[in-house]
Structure formats: structure tokens, C-alpha cells
């Protein structure tokens, strides 16, 4: 028994979602058995030895110029090489932009099913059950894998990381045969979002604004609250469609699915398609002047009031709190 975890890196940095996958692999290894082995493809070692602290017992590293940027076909070859040498019972990916692109390709090459965007993995009598939200979170589907290896991608921010203080892991070279032909889908550049802002899917705290803000010029209310909380700004589709915010900020069915520890919805009614993207947040706060707004049905803490008064007051209160600690 072993568990293989795809270790995602960009520009020499292991991405946090891979530590989450290692955390879950370590927990599963306690029942299913280990070891937990990482596989990474990069142009140079992004400091993989340190992943011992995140739960890896060993990491396989494939290097080469094809791995400088994300290259689905080359990465598939690397992960498949790892699967062939290790013969794991379970292969985990993060359901990130990269993991969602790569994992179906690997599953099709190996010829097994894939459970994508899982929110829970449960060992049961020697097999594994994977739970995944479907119908935009309106239902939860549970699947079993009839063949090995089982393959799953994990929703970011849902699975806890672990820390094994000071532990390091051996890094072994993985040889991958790549054809010499250049990549057929080549990343030529990566354009960073303005301000180098954290992606919504990876944010601990999100403050989202909706049509209740009345106009783009009032989004500074949301931005100030976000700054005080150390949060990322999100938005409802209504304001994205109106051009107040970029599409990258949209939370919901046709935007991003987020699971932060705190989600603050400001002037958002809570349409089913918006809830689809944020209802798995750990704690939800809603600020809305309409006591019957559906957002209050999912909010842990609701505040009924005019956002133009409440939000500045809340921002100030949080700033005061920060000043005290």
C-alpha cells in the first residue's frame, strides 16, 4: 500500500494546496497504510526535502526544461512514470487550476476513474469512499473506485495540513522519457493579476461585495474592510456582469468555489448560484439591509443594516482590535 501525491510547484515554490493533499494522505495512511510519496516535476528542486514536515515520506523529482512552465503532456508522463514504478493504491491531486487540468489526463492514460473536487475521503472496509459536491453544492455524491489506483482531486482549503516539526524527506530522481518534439501546448507567459493579490480559492478570509454597494466607486468600503481583516476581495456575479469587478473576483456557480475560514458577504442577496460558490466556508457573515435576504439562511452571523453605515464601523472595530494585539 502506498499513496502518491502530486506536488504542484510554480516558479520554484511548492503550492500550499499540495501540503493540504499531503496532510490528507498522511491521515489516510494511518488506516490504509503508507508510505506517502510525492511526485514533482520542475526545472529545479523547489526545496522538496522540507515536505517531510508536511507528511511526505519520500518525494520523486523529475527535472528538465519541459517542466519550467506547466506542460500537461510532459507532466502526465512524469506522474504516470511515478505510478508505474510505485504502483500506489491511491493518487491524490489538488483540485487547483493545474490539478484539474492534469488529473483527468493521467486518469485517462492509466484507465481509471477520477473523483474530482472531493471534500472528504473516507476509508471503509479496505476501500475508499470519496465525497464530492455536485449540482453546484446542492447535493453530495459519494463514489467508490472499482479498480486501483483510486484517483481523486481535493478541493483547496478543505483538507488540513499537518506539521512534523523539523522532519525532512529524501528526494529521489525520477527518470521520465519525453519525446524531443516541443510541447504542443506551450505556456509562453504568466500574467500576474494586478497587485499580486492572493487567489480567492487560496484565501483564508474573503470579503465579497454585491449589488447592494450601488456602484463601483463604493467598493473601497469592501476593500478597506478586507485590508483590516487581511482578506481578499470577492464579488457577486451581478457586479462582475456590471463591470465593477473583474471576472477573476466572481464567487459562485460560474465563478470560483471558495472555502475560506471566514466569508463576509456585503450587500449580496444570496442567490442559489452565489451560495454554490461559498456555502462550504467555515464561518459566514452577512451584512444586508433586508432581513429576509436568503443569505441570512446560510450565515452563521447576520447583521441587518445599511452597509454604508455598518461596514465602516466594522472596519474601524477590526482596526482597533488589530492595534491592541
Amino acid at each position, binding site marked *: 500500500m502506498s499513496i502518491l501525491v502530486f506536488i504542484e510547484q510554480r516558479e520554484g515554490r511548492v503550492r500550499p494546496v499540495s501540503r493540504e493533499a499531503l496532510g490528507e494522505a498522511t491521515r489516510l495512511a494511518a488506516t490504509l497504510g503508507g508510505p506517502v510519496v510525492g511526485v514533482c516535476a520542475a526545472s529545479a528542486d523547489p526545496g522538496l526535502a522540507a515536505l517531510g514536515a508536511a507528511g511526505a515520506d519520500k518525494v520523486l523529482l523529475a527535472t528538465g526544461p519541459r517542466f519550467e512552465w506547466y506542460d500537461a503532456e510532459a507532466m502526465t508522463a512524469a506522474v504516470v512514470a511515478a505510478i508505474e514504478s510505485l504502483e500506489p493504491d491511491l493518487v491524490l491531486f489538488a483540485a487547483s487550476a493545474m490539478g484539474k487540468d492534469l488529473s483527468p489526463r493521467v*486518469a485517462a492514460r492509466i484507465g481509471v476513474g477520477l473523483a474530482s473536487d472531493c471534500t472528504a475521503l473516507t476509508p471503509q472496509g479496505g476501500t475508499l*469512499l470519496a465525497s464530492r459536491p455536485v449540482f453546484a453544492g446542492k447535493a453530495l455524491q459519494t463514489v467508490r473506485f472499482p479498480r486501483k489506483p483510486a484517483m481523486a482531486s481535493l478541493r483547496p482549503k478543505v483538507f488540513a495540513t499537518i506539521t512534523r516539526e523539523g522532519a525532512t524527506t529524501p528526494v529521489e530522481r525520477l527518470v521520465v522519457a519525453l519525446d524531443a518534439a516541443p510541447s504542443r*501546448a506551450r505556456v509562453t507567459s504568466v500574467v500576474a493579476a494586478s497587485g499580486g*493579490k492572493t487567489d480567492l480559492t487560496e484565501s483564508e478570509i474573503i470579503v465579497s461585495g454585491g449589488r447592494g454597494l450601488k456602484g463601483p466607486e463604493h467598493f473601497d468600503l469592501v476593500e478597506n474592510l478586507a485590508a483590516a481583516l487581511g482578506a481578499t476581495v470577492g464579488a457577486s456575479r451581478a457586479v462582475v456582469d456590471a463591470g465593477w469587478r473583474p471576472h*477573476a473576483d466572481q464567487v459562485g456557480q460560474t465563478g470560483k468555489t471558495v472555502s475560506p475560514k471566514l466569508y463576509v458577504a456585503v450587500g449580496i442577496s444570496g442567490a442559489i448560484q452565489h451560495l454554490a460558490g461559498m456555502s462550504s466556508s467555515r464561518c459566514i457573515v452577512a451584512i444586508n439591509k433586508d432581513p429576509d435576504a436568503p443569505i441570512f439562511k446560510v450565515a452563521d*452571523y447576520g447583521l441587518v443594516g445599511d452597509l454604508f453605515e455598518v461596514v465602516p464601523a466594522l472596519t474601524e472595530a477590526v482596526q482597533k*482590535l488589530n492595534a491592541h494585539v
Partner: protein
Amino acid sequence: MIQVVCIKQVADTETRVKVAADGKSLDPAGVTWILNPYDEFAVEQALRVKEQLGAGEVIAISLGGAGVPTTLRSVLAMGADRAIHLKADGPAPDSLQVARALATEIAPLGAGLVWLGKQAVDDDAAQVGPMLAELLHLPCVTVVASFELAGDRAKVEREIEGGREVVEVTLPAVLTADKGLNEPRYASLKGIMAAKKKTIDEKPAALGEPNLEVKSLALPPARSAGRIVGKGIEAVPELVRLLREEAKVI
């Protein structure tokens, strides 16, 4: 150039989910069926490419039950030239089964571009596109937000965490469409009339063995009913206290 668009008929996003008696699937009673929203962007982009080139054929293909021709007809009304219905009744096939059946049908067509949606809004799998590309031995770019064709290659952009990836892809290729790729057209009356004369070929889907076994479909545990902390700015101190002491999130 021949372009193929894979489309899926799905339950309307407003649908209230009811679990069927088998405990594994959606109860279809009262469900309105629509074209998967992301597939609209895929159809639109294929039509724009055809218009840009001034020639070619757009073939819509869908695997599913007896209701599928209605949705295929709506894609023909948008402007697709012909359609293929891969008939499959019975339990919903998994993504790899679908990809295999589509690959068998698409491989001999010699398409330059194969379009899909980034994800179907029922199973939310986001798998069929890259699986199909793998089975067809083609490059694939997923979650495409912009597309520019120049000869036998295309410059596409896709959103990733914290930015956008610019990708140069050589044709033939598989692409999955994100919202924002374009503004899909509405079918014109003329288009709707013309669609009635276009052909929908029906064939049985070549579904192999299942690769995932669905154990259950359940409504998610309801979030415990929240509470209203209070009204107006007077409630702000209490909200802050709760977030700090009870929820421990700030």
C-alpha cells in the same frame, strides 16, 4: 476546418435537487433541461472560428438519453451544421466512459478543433475535456477565457490562481471554454427554421465498463440555521466579539 463541439444536456441551475428512489441520482420529475451553460461558450467560439475562416463545418455531438435531440436542435439553431446523438439510456456514465465514447466517434472526423465546456454543472466533474484529449492524443487547454486563431496555431489565455496563463497551442487541439470567452448569440428565427432541416445522426454510444461506482447522492447537511446578531451599527461590537471569541476567525 471541421470543428466538433461536445455538448451536454443538464438540469437547469435553478433546479431544486431531489434524490431519486435509487438513492444515487437526481429525480428527473419536474426538471427543466438546458444546454450546459459552459457549452454555450464552446458553441459560440466554434461558430466564430467558422465565420473567421469563411468555411468549414461545425458538428455538435452529445451523449445522453431520449431528451438530448431538443438540446442538439437548439445548438443547430445557433448555427451548427449537423449533429450526432450518441444514445445512452440508463444510469449516468462516468467521465471516462463518456470521453471514450466521444473519442471513438470524433477520432475519424479529422477535426481541427474540438470544443467542450470547462465543466458540466450537474456532475461538476471538469474531466471530459482533458480525458478526451488524452484519448485522441491531442494537446488540450482547459478553462479558456480568450482565443485567437492564427493559421495552424492559437493563442489562448486561461485563468490560474493569481493570474493568467498565456498558452500557444498547435492544432488539432481540444479546448474547454470558460465563462467570459465570448457572449453567446441567441438563435434567430431564421436559425430556428433552418435547424429543423438539419440532420441529427443517432447511434448507440460505445460505453465501456464503468470506472467509478456511485454509492449515494444526498442532500448536504444543512448549515445550522444562522443567527441575526443584531441591527445596524449597534450590533458591530457584538459581531466582532463573536468572530473573535466564539468563531475564533479573527
